């Protein structure tokens, strides 16, 4: 399943990114972030890490140092949509646990798991600056706050409703 996404088209696009960043190894983090955005299931496959490293003249170990260090980068496939629930301080006093319980029940998975259809991944996150609308989660880059059971269901339905590409 994964292999089909690693086609020539993807590598062409990655070339485009590397080119826009002038083949400069100082832009490794930026290039990895943008490449990851192109890849379904939000991760950097080994082939892509190797390719970017080669193109920039950065050793693979350094590429993986970066991928493993930053929370926004992953070396393992996640899901079509990644739900990140904040469990930092403000969301703690605003009882993120209630949100977690609804999410786990609705998706029938536990935190840290992926739904069997590969549609949703559920994970915790540190504060992402949405404390004024806490409790909050992010789905990919979209932030949702002031959550209650009703609202969470509506949000999930919206994402469930979209067709698989």
């Amino acid at each position, binding site marked *: 399943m994964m292999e089909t996404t690693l086609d020539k088209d993807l590598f062409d696009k990655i070339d485009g990114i590397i080119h826009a960043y002038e083949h400069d*190894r*100082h*832009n*490794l*983090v*930026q290039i*990895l*972030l943008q490449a990851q955005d192109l890849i379904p299931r939000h991760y950097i496959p080994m082939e892509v890490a190797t390719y970017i490293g080669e193109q920039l003249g*950065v050793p693979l170990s*350094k590429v993986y*140092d*970066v991928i*493993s*260090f*930053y*929370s*926004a*980068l992953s070396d393992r496939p996640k899901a079509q949509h990644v739900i990140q629930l904040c*469990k*930092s*301080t*403000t969301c*703690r*006093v*605003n009882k993120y646990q209630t949100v977690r319980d609804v999410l786990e029940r609705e998706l029938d998975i536990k935190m840290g798991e992926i739904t069997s259809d590969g549609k949703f991944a559920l994970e915790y996150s*540190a*504060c*992402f*600056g*949405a*404390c*004024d*609308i*806490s409790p909050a989660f*992010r789905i990919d*880059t979209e932030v949702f706050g002031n959550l209650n059971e009703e609202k969470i269901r509506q949000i999930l339905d919206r994402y469930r409703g979209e067709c698989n590409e």
Partner: protein
Amino acid sequence: MKKKYVKSLIGIGVNAMNKTVSLISKNFKNLDPKSLQEYLHAGGYLGLEKALASTPAQVIQEVKKSGLQGRGGAAYPTGRKWEQAAAVEGPRKIVICNADEGEPGTFKDRYLLQYDPFKIIEGMTIAAYAVGATEGYIYIREEYKKLQDQMKIVIASALEGGFLGDNILGTGLCFHIKVVSGAGAYVCGENSTLIESIEGKSGRPRIKPPYIKEKGLFGLPTLVNNVETFSVIPVIFEIGAEEYSKYGTEFSKGTKLISLCGNIQYPGTYEIPFGLTLREIIYDIGGGIRDGKKLKFLQLGGASGAILPASKIDIPYTYEDFEGNGLTIGSGAILIADETNKVVDYMKSVQDFFLHESCGKCTPCREGNRQLSKIINRFVSGTASIEDFQTVERFARVMKYCSFCGLGQTAPSALLSAIQHFPDEFYQQIHKVRKIM
């Protein structure tokens, strides 16, 4: 009903009802943040024009006169920082805006990025002129992806309008700004770590010296300031340092954006003059505690700041009063916790954060946070022992004095203050004590 006689005594921009002011927040929700025209119409770039009419040395003097202290957490005097940056020789110098905003409970820079992005780049441009820099970077956290995109648009139109580029406002001043994305690491908010990250590396702090001002990004002289700090700059030039410093107190000049959040009626970002009490902030601005509950404690300045019990909320919000009470203004976060929260459980969320965010470079922080986490877990599950108190204190001291960067140095401050103010809640969780009680 008594007439509101105060109204006549209050200067421009002061709102009698809720005690907030609007200097740097004046454009919030009042204009299209992407529109240069609307920004100009609202008085934007007057500050830059005035600054460019003075010499760089005069600009620095004006910033010094304003009394502005860095709003990123460390409260270093901005004028002095600029003076030092200007004194470093070099043909190529850098100005960086720190928009990493990773401190839990903090979102005030997000408001600036979202509602008044031009003000940030205007402030950076004035800084570039003052210190002699030609290249600028805004490092915006990955979580604010949409604001990165908006900032790119804003920069492009400033460039087109002649407010950035090779000949700014026809004065020959040259300054370009690039947007760089963070990738989800709190420690990258620390100056030198942020620079490592812009250079494409994983985020681990650098040893200092050499200082950032001499050898920063790409080994070039570099000035780093916070988003809010840069946003104050155009205001200082627009209304004058003297006028700006009339707000606040003798040792805490001007206004501050606070991030008010938690179990509060009206969470949000507010601009206040320094000197209001925490009580005024909570009840007059924030509308009090949500759902009619009672206030239990606050955490000030983010996860790295101390806990304060409800009984102490008459402390004024100033650098000097905070310091005298073992508190820090820090990022400006004010997190409100009501009576339903257990202090020990809350401390777990603080500790989980530091355990996750420690970069692992130095032992006191990496191992200290691991041990503190284990101890807090014991308190949460009610299996702690009396020795755990001593261990916490010993480890916290080592972390405070021996950690390589601010993350490890400040990580235990919340826990220590929590034990100090709420000892009973910890004692209750000790196995043997509970049996006796």
